[in-house]
């Protein structure tokens, strides 16, 4: 088996290292102090200050190398204290000291390297400023690597070399991310804060830059947000059988590569720079497609710029069975232009398509459109009608709940079947994740105050793949913490993407239950809060802040005639297989196995219909148990209404709120 490890010698001691590691990091990990001026842990090593030189012996030959950018690829012997090394470092340190004698970091390096004569290299270039720029280049590289810009660079040659913006003028492309100041070792670059009067702007900046540094160093091997944005999730969901296909019947499709992130990158995306939605954020999750020529609608023939597509939009196309990149662009553009949500339209169209394929509606109802799965042209026709307020598109625009009622009433369509396959709760269409194999996610969707929306789809992996929340109590705890954590982002106007779409390298060291929360990033968010308000925050306070709002929202739902258990009930498609085709697609891998091992019934000899009935009974029972556990954990009655004592605990037992829920108490 090929190994990724190599044994090297450091000052006579053998140690095992990972191949291709840079030598400086290995030396420091082994307790060897190495002076550097141009090295920064989050930036690509440059080797320009040359203070980190060490002497290596390889294949019998000795040479000096800069350790920061020397990748270990073979067996070497390293000497970090040879006379040659010491002399080299001392001479360099004397030269630095001669030029910038009062800069603290230079003085520190000089002391380490034994350079005491500050006049040895004194010249007309000597700069007595304590905060002088020492030309380390950190700011130039941070600009390029943290935020993918080139606002700063060196100009001039030799003794005239200096750091500047292009033509010495303030560049309007600067997004004010402050990365240059964050990495500056001398204070030559300072930030003047003039916005919003935060309690401690530096605290906010420093914690923000920590995440920007992670984006620069980790994103390319994690979620590739900079490269493809949230569309990376299309590939993941398809691989894990979780991508909604044909109205959530299936979880993957052979044609997914037509709309996955690789295809979007190769064929469509033309821009991916930070768009400034959050000043200083370098995640650059927004992607843009330029010069796309529209084939339908009022702008037919025009070349337009499409903003997106994000995961949910691409997954909505899969849900409609429309695995066509050009369709996806056109659908994305017109949904945005008309101001309709790509998720709700996609999920509603998928419902319409299944009804059409099952003969519940026909071309007479759809205005002549053959609305089968994959009918790209017909979907776009519906979308245009919806915007124009004419034809069948008007009905589609009213949503699944409306269509179920209308077709049962006016066409006598099978109401039970439509209830099973109509993917909406509280009138809101489901977002684009298949949740039927994850009990916690089923409840996560249905119990979300505003309906089954994409903000609350974090429990699928935890539950279905990791099996890390196996008991009802575990699931209830997850259904307490995560929705409140999500609420907290909204309360503070903070974006959640930097929470778990890039994670610190150290997150792998936490046990799963803690790792799922990305503890280091939770702490970063608490620091943002503290930096803004001056008040320190911890998990308990955060949860209480959110719980007050969450319970208030639930009481308001009750006031509006919702907010009880019946409003938290999912369509069966979200819980298990509705049709024989669906059951059989996962019979061997999942459903038959679960029947035997979990329900305790041998599926042998049973018809698909019998097996589906057994599975359904079991799954609905399980769903109700998880809802009971979650209500208990939240301090709600078994009918899903906040208990008055819970409002008291949270300090929101106002008479007008108590009045709304007093008759619902157990």
């Amino acid at each position: 088996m090929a190994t990724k490890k190599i044994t090297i010698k450091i000052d006579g001691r053998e140690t095992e290292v990972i191949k291709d590691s840079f030598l400086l990091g290995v030396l420091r990990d082994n307790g060897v102090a190495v002076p550097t001026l141009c090295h920064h842990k989050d930036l690509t090593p440059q080797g320009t200050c040359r203070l980190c030189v060490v002497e290596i012996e390889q294949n019998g030959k000795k040479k000096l190398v800069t350790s920061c950018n020397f990748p270990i690829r073979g067996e070497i012997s390293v000497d970090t204290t040879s006379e040659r090394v010491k002399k080299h470092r001392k001479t360099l340190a004397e030269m630095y000291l001669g030029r910038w004698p009062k800069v603290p970091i230079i003085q520190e390096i000089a002391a380490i390297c034994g350079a005491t004569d500050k006049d040895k290299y004194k010249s007309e270039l000597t700069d007595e400023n304590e905060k002088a720029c020492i030309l380390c280049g950190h700011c130039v590289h941070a600009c390029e690597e943290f935020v993918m810009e080139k606002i700063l660079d060196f100009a001039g040659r030799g003794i005239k070399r200096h750091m500047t913006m292009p033509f010495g003028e303030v560049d309007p492309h600067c997004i004010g991310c402050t990365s240059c100041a964050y990495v500056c070792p001398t204070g030559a670059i300072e930030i003047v804060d003039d916005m919003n009067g935060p309690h401690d702007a530096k605290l906010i900046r420093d914690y923000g830059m920590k995440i920007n540094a992670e984006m620069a160093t980790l994103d390319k091997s994690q979620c590739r947000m900079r490269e493809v944005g949230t569309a990376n999730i299309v590939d993941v969901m398809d691989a894990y059988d979780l991508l909604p296909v044909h109205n959530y019947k299936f979880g993957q499709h052979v044609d997914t590569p037509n709309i996955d992130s690789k295809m979007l990158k190769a064929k469509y995306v033309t821009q991916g720079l930070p768009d400034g939605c959050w000043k200083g954020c370098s995640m650059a999750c927004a992607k843009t497609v330029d010069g796309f020529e529209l084939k339908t609608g009022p702008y037919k023939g025009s070349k337009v710029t499409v903003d997106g597509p994000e995961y949910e939009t691409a997954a909505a196309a899969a849900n409609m069975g429309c695995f066509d990149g050009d369709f996806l662009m056109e659908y994305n553009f017109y949904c945005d232009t008309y101001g309709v949500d790509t998720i709700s339209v996609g999920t509603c169209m998928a419902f319409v398509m299944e009804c059409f394929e099952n003969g519940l509606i026909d071309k007479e109802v759809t205005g002549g459109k053959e609305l089968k799965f994959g009918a790209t042209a017909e979907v776009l026709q519906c979308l245009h009608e919806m915007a124009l307020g004419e034809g069948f598109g008007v009905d589609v625009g009213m949503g699944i709940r409306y269509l179920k009622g209308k077709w049962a009433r006016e066409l006598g369509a099978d109401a039970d079947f439509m209830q099973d396959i109509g993917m909406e709760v509280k009138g809101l269409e489901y977002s684009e994740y298949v949740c039927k194999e994850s009990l916690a996610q089923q409840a996560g969707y249905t119990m979300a105050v505003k309906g089954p929306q994409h903000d609350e789809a974090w429990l699928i992996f935890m539950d279905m793949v990791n099996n890390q929340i196996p008991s009802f109590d575990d699931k209830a705890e997850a259904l307490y913490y995560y929705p409140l954590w999500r609420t907290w982002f909204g309360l503070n106007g903070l974006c959640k993407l930097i929470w778990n779409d890039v994670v610190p390298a150290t997150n792998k060291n936490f046990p799963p239950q803690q790792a799922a929360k990305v503890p280091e990033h939770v702490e970063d968010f608490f620091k943002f809060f503290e930096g803004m308000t001056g008040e320190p925050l911890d998990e308990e306070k955060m949860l209480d802040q959110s719980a007050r709002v969450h319970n208030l929202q639930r009481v308001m739902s009750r006031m509006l005639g919702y907010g009880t258990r019946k409003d938290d009930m999912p369509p069966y498609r979200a819980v298990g297989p509705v049709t024989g085709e669906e059951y059989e697609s996962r019979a061997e891998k999942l459903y038959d196995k679960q029947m035997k091992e979990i329900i305790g019934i041998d599926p042998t000899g049973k018809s698909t219909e019998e097996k589906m009935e057994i599975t359904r009974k079991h799954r609905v029972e399980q769903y109700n148990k998880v809802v009971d556990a979650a209500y208990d954990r939240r301090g709600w009655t078994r009918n899903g209404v906040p208990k008055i004592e819970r409002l008291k605990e949270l300090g929101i037992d106002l008479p007008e709120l108590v009045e709304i829920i007093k008759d619902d108490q157990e």
Partner: protein
Amino acid sequence: MITVNNRDRLEWREGMTVQDLLDEMGYDYVLITVTVNEILIPEEDYDSYELESGSNVVVFHLAHGG
């Protein structure tokens, strides 16, 4: 036999590595943490760490998106 995530069972064979297990389970997600009998396995060891029969392997997928 090997247990994965306290639920799935996988046939053990001589010389089977963590990477072999991930391949067989179809676990190609990027934000994965692996423990074998509660010991954390560094990523660089996936293709050399050999599993023993009866090992309890936890493959933790950190959710993103959503």
